[in-house]
Each structure stands twice: as C-alpha cells, then as structure tokens.
C-alpha cells in the first residue's frame, strides 16, 4: 500500500495521454448509438413487417450478432474490411463500423419491444385518418415507442460505453488504452488501471443515475 504513487495523475500527463483516448471512447459511443438506433429501428420494422422477405434476414442478423461475443465481431470486421476494400481503414474507423453494426442488433430488440408495446388502437387511429404506413410510423407509432423506450435505450448506451473498452483487442486508442500507455511509460500501471476504473465508474454511475431519474419522469407521463 505504501509504495503507491499517484503523481502520474497530473494535468499535463492526463492531457497528453488520456484526453485523446477519452474523446475517442465518447465519439465511438455517440456514433454507434446514433447509427445503431437508426439501423436498429429499420431492423425492428423489418421484423414486424409481416413480410417474410424482410422478416427472416432481419431475424438472422439480430439473433446471429447477439449470439457471438463483441470481441469476435471486432476481430471479424478488422479482418474483413481490408479484404473487401483492398486497403486498411485504421483501427479507430474499424471500431466505429463494428460497434454500429453490432449495437444495431441490440437496439433493434429494444425498438421492437417499444413498437409492440403501443396499443393497437393507435395504428388503427392513424389508418382511420388516412395516413400511409410510413406516415403512420413516422408521426404516430415511432415517436411513442421511442419515448417509452428512452430509458432502456440509454441504459444500453451505458453498456455500449463500457464495451468500447474492448477495442483493446485491436489496439485502438481509447480511454483504457490511454491510461495503460500512461502507466507503461512511467512504470505505474497499477495506479493507472485503478484510475481507469475510477473514471469509467464515475461516468457510468452518473449516467445511470440520470437514467433512473428520467425513468421516474416518464413513468409519470404514462
């Protein structure tokens, strides 16, 4: 206990090693969240369309990705993209692609539950006032589904933020990698792993507290 040395945690070192990692982790989380929710919503609509041609591919996509580890998907994308494009796109971009397609599977299950929770009368009401399928989704169903599922979507985003640490598998420079590099350069890995844990904890704990508050608010609206 006595030989701990936290002097590596000074502003200069944190800025030069950790800041860029933190920025990448946050970027990755945001892009994967937005892309994942968009693709996920499309997948959910496909699965609920009642048309086999849409339903089956969407189901294979979602169930397939949900049954393999994220690390495996990270490795797959990192291996396949250069084969398809004929050139490497870099670890960071590869990670962004991976997380977007991977999280889409999870967000799609949430959106599917959200859409299914809407009362059937809402669909009928939309049809009765002459809305097309797309209009009905756009103006009646999806806004409600989205709002009901907001806490769950955000909880999944916290999980997503934690999972970004797995880009370790391909060596992308994220928050964890930043702390690790700092620790290795100054021979203080014990302290920096501890530091990484504290930073992840603070971010995730505050976010989940916010989500809990939001959940209470939404519960009242409903």
């Amino acid at each position, binding site marked *: 206990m006595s030989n701990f040395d936290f002097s590596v945690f000074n502003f200069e070192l944190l800025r030069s090693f950790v800041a860029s990692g933190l920025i990448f982790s946050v970027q990755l989380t945001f892009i994967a969240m937005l892309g994942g929710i968009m693709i996920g919503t499309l997948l959910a609509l496909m699965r609920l369309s009642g048309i086999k041609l849409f339903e089956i591919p969407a189901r294979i996509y979602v169930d397939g990705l949900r049954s*393999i*580890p994220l690390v495996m998907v990270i*490795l797959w994308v990192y*291996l396949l993209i250069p*084969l398809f494009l004929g050139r490497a796109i870099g670890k960071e971009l590869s990670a962004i692609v991976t997380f977007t397609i991977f999280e889409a599977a999870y967000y799609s299950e949430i959106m599917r539950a959200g859409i299914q929770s809407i009362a059937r009368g809402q669909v009928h009401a939309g049809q009765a006032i002459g809305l097309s399928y797309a209009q009905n989704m756009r103006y009646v169903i999806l806004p409600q589904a989205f709002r009901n599922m907001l806490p769950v979507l955000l909880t999944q985003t916290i999980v997503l933020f*934690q999972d970004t640490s797995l880009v370790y598998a391909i060596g992308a420079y994220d928050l964890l990698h930043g702390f690790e590099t700092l620790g290795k350069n100054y021979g203080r890995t*014990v302290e920096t*792993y501890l530091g*990484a844990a504290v930073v992840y*904890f603070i971010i995730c704990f505050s976010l989940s507290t916010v989500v809990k508050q939001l959940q209470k608010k939404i519960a009242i609206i409903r």
Partner: protein
Amino acid sequence: MNYRWDWQVYLQDTGGGQTYLQWMMSAWGWTIAVAILAWVVALAFGSLIGVLRTVPNKGLQLFGNAWVELFRNIPVLVQIFLWYHVIPALIPPMKTLPSFILVVFALGFFTSARVAEQVRAGIQSLPRGQMMAGSAMGLTLPQTYRYVILPMAFRIILPPLTSEAMNIIKNSSVAFAVSISELILFAMQAQEETSRGIEIYLGVTGLYIVSAFAVNRLMALIEANVRVPGTIGAAK
C-alpha cells in the same frame, strides 16, 4: 470475391506437436471452464447479494446496493485488469494465484451484480403475503427465505438467468487480455500464424454459437422441470 478457401489449415501442425484443430478444441475447453466456474461464483455471490438487498436491514441493503453499483459500472475488461494488476499489489499473497483463477473471480463478480439484480427483482415480484405467511407459520427470516421466498423467486427469474448464462460465455472472451488460452486468444494467434483468418474465425464463431445454443437448451430443460404449478408458464 473469389476467395480461395483452405480448410486444411486446421490439420496443420502448430509447431508445438498439435494441430490447429486440437488447439482450438483445447481453447474451447478453456472458454467453457472459465464460463462455468465464473457462473458458479456469480450465482453464489449474486444470490447472496440479491437477498441482502431485500432483507429488512438498512445496513445490509446499502452493502448490497453498493456491491451492485460497483461491479456494474466498471467495464468487465477493466475489472479483469484490476484483479490482475491492482489487487495483487494491495494483497501480496494473491500474486501467487494463477491468472485463470483471477479471471474466474473477475468475471464471476462482474456477473454477480447482474444476477443480484435479477434475484432482487424476483423476490420483490412475489406478493408481500408470502413473507407474512412465512412469519405467521413461525418461520425465522432465514427459514422464510429458504423454504418460501427463494424457491419461488428462482423459478420466476429463470428466463433472465438464461440470458445471463449465455452472456457469461460471451463475456469469457475478455480473458484473452490476460493471456488465458481461450477461443479469442486462439483466434488472434492462429490468424497471425497461418494468415487463414476467415477459416479460423468461422470455426471459433461456430463454437461460440454452439455453446450459447447448448446453454439455452439446458436452461430450457431446467425451466420445464421446475415450473410452478398453476402459473401461465406451466399450462401445457
């Protein structure tokens, strides 16, 4: 894409007196071993913490809640590094433990927070009358939990526990980070050595899907055998 498949890579010698197929099978064994042992740790601690969060004692509740928040809000990979680098620095005797044991505890404690959350939800989903019926019969609090509350709660939460059991197989993949020779580490190293990444990754992906499916079927079997008579789930 005219990719030239070469499945014979699996029969090549790794240079260590075994083929890549044999290596992959032993890696599968490590994955399963980590997952099963971590699941035992997770169930034991998760049930205990889940119960603590429901007992009428503020101190114990607080401890249970703190446990769940601590292990749920740190990424599992970081937790593995904590067990591997930080805890042995704090408690020197732990330096002698093999990394396999550390990973089992890291993954087990991480999952215990999720199990505890399910156990708490299961207990709280029971009508309050169950607890009262227990005390009315003169059972002590531990007895009420043992004979009345837990047998019901565990059956109710079997479906979410199934997904946790499937998750733990997937999450065991982070063990590669501390050089446990499991499937992901095999995939990375064999890809490097043979440059037949697609064939290797397909094999590993297949094994993960088979494992997840096996867990799913096993839990469905358990679920079918312990259904609570008279509930919707039990109606055939």
